[in-house]
């Protein structure tokens, strides 16, 4: 069709249909593509390991990983590992995220808090929290305390940054409207600032909770008998790739689950968005 168009133009005769040039740049929801990518990648690895051009030391066979996973499930060990990990994740992330949202809102609302804490947050954000684990063990004990602290600390900083950014982005004209109707300061914060900051806070949580999962492995480096992180670290030190991958897959699934939960929360709380 491009041919005929060009032809007509050259001959200077006949109407030419206007060429469509407005396509693209509009994301569509194509859920199945993600699944296809996963399946193709796994199938490729399976085929590669079976035919031998991927050596057993490079990657484990996906079917073996699955078998390890099934075994883990059937022996009941999966839940023995999952239960303490989930507890640590939930408690640590809840502590860190709620402290982060609280401090972030205060930074957003009060200039003195902002001036005092923003540089501090910027200073502690890039510290690898894993490096502080020995310190946390001394401060909070080798038991659960240090693990909660590590995860909480790691979730705290990104949550603070996302939250005060979200508060800064609340539409000033809405706040002005609240003032013009004589709403109290507290009402303005509760009914205008917090709901207005919610989209930013939730998208910040997506990142901080992923970081919490990353830190789970670090937290279980010291003084943990059971836990997904401990399981992965043990498999790694024995170079048991099947178990290592089985553990990693569990973490990935955990990440997908958390992301889906936040998606659900967004649908619930942010249905008002255009």
């Amino acid at each position: 069709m491009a041919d005929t168009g060009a032809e007509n133009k050259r001959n200077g005769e006949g109407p030419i249909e206007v060429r469509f040039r407005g396509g693209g740049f509009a994301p569509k929801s194509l859920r199945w593509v993600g699944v296809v990518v996963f399946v193709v990648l796994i199938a490729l690895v399976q085929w590669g390991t079976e035919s031998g051009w991927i050596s057993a030391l490079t990657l484990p066979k996906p079917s073996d990983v699955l078998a390890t996973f099934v075994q883990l499930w059937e022996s009941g060990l999966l839940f023995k590992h999952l239960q303490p990990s989930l507890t640590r994740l939930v408690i640590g992330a809840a502590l860190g995220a709620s402290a982060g949202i609280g401090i972030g809102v205060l930074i957003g609302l009060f200039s003195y808090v902002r001036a005092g804490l923003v540089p501090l947050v910027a200073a502690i954000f890039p510290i690898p929290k894993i490096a502080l684990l020995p310190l946390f063990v001394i401060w909070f004990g080798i038991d659960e305390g240090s693990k909660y602290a590590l995860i909480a600390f790691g979730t705290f900083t990104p949550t603070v940054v996302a939250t005060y950014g979200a508060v800064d982005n609340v539409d000033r004209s809405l706040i002005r409207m609240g003032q013009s109707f004589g709403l109290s300061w507290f009402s303005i914060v509760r009914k205008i600032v917090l709901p207005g900051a919610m989209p930013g806070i939730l998208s910040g949580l997506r990142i901080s909770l992923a970081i919490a999962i990353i830190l789970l492995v670090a937290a279980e480096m010291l003084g943990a008998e059971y836990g997904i992180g401990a399981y992965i670290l043990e498999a790694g030190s024995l170079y048991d790739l099947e178990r290592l991958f089985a553990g990693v897959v569990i973490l990935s699934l955990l990440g997908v689950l958390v992301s889906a939960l936040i998606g659900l929360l967004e649908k619930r709380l942010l249905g008002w968005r255009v």
Partner: protein
Amino acid sequence: MGMDIRLDGICHFYGDTEVLRDISLEIPTGQIVCLVGPSGCGKSTLLRLIGGLERPGSGRVLQLGAPPSNSLNPLTFVFQDFALLPWRTVKGNISLVLEDHGIRGKRSKAIIDDVLTRTKLADFADALPKQLSGGMKQRVAIARALAVNPAVMLMDEPLSALDAQTRELLMDDLVALWTRQPFTAVYVTHNLAEAVRLGHTIVVLSRRPGRIREIVSIDTPIGERRAGDPVCQRKHDLLWELLREEARAADEELIDG
């Protein structure tokens, strides 16, 4: 029983820029005073000064007489961008301004039903702002303003974000609202047709720094003004004569120059 507003020698600066110079003006009860002027002349700033959202550099804004005792928020704004909370329904947006006065439940519902009926929104109480057209959103904002029973409505280009047809319809609605129950309003606009249609007095401001250039009053009752009415048309032309040079000069000014 009524509250007048008096502006007494208002001057205002933003940094080193003088935006308003020596504005003295009387806003009598039950009348609509329109403020017109070229863009950047400080008419919206003047409105915010009247409503207490900004402090004047010098001069005073005075309330003469007490507002009606049932007025929850004597000076009430209607904004150009509507300023509705997108996460609250139409009903919720109106109850927002009642909650702080401890009005809930039955009393709140009665007020909300009343103002929604007056603004022809009764069927949309549970809609979210994103479901409404611009004209409907501004109706909600007007309903919200009526809910607090203002002594003076401060309207900041309320129709400027709407298309021409919707603007006509809303102007009719405002006229109907005023005829049923006269309210006091300061109405900022750059649209002379709106000013001529709604204003008892029209205050023409000069370009920055804004001064009062002329005060034009129209005696035709606002309920009887029609498009193409010769008196209104003459006033419109007179206002345009006054504004043309100011508008041209303002247009050619460098911003922050």
